[in-house]
């Protein structure tokens, strides 16, 4: 899990570095990281649910969900960015960051769950197609 966390942190650093060159809004890189991470954790969580059709051992689940996704996303950087916005009187940035982060991340979770549901069937159909 520590390795997963490390991998997640490196991925977060890479993505936020890449994003910071694209658009100049301070909260954006971490926002992108958190939303994509939420989608990932949700998809992986629901697609490998023990009651479902795709099996992922509990160690793999802990590695991917708690380790990688957990290490990839961050609440501290999000909070620090919010704090700095408040400190500099950038209250639009503050509320935009908080509002967008929570809304878009919950949306990411929902998307992950929605896509995970039909995924096993889609996978089987794709394999059947490939084998025929």
């Amino acid at each position, binding site marked *: 899990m520590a390795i997963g966390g490390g991998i997640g942190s490196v991925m977060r650093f890479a993505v936020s570095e890449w994003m910071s060159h694209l658009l100049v809004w301070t909260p954006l890189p971490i926002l992108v990281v958190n939303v994509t991470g939420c989608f990932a954790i949700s998809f992986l969580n629901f697609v490998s649910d023990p009651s479902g059709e795709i099996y992922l051992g509990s160690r793999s689940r802990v590695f991917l969900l708690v380790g990688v996704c957990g290490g990839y996303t961050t609440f501290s950087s999000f909070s620090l960015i919010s704090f700095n916005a408040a400190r500099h009187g950038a209250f639009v940035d503050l509320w935009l960051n908080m509002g967008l982060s929570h809304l878009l991340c919950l949306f*990411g979770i929902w998307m992950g769950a929605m896509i995970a549901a039909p995924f096993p069937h889609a996978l089987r159909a794709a394999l059947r197609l490939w084998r025929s």
Partner: protein
Amino acid sequence: MWRYWWSGLVAERFGETFPFGTLVVNIVGSALIGTFSGLLPHVANGRLSTALQQLLMVGVCGGLTTFSSFSLQTYNLIVEGRWLSALGNIALSSGLCLGCVAVGWQVTQGIRF
């Protein structure tokens, strides 16, 4: 690892009714990042490399805290119809973490470098 251990410990104490474990690690990580942001630029006469500063803030605090587990837990609360708990989780996490960053940073402001 710490995040998993702490979350598990808190979950055992308070039950799985509310994601207190995630809240605790996020609070601690936020307090840490607040402290680091006020402290690190001054350590060693400002000669601490930006790489090391980044490592501590991005690596340690970022790895300790999590937005994905928090969001997933909030989502599950919503799906269970526990809207008040979901909103409470969002408000409490955001508010307390913001407060802890502020406290961590404010503490460093009183230090003479």
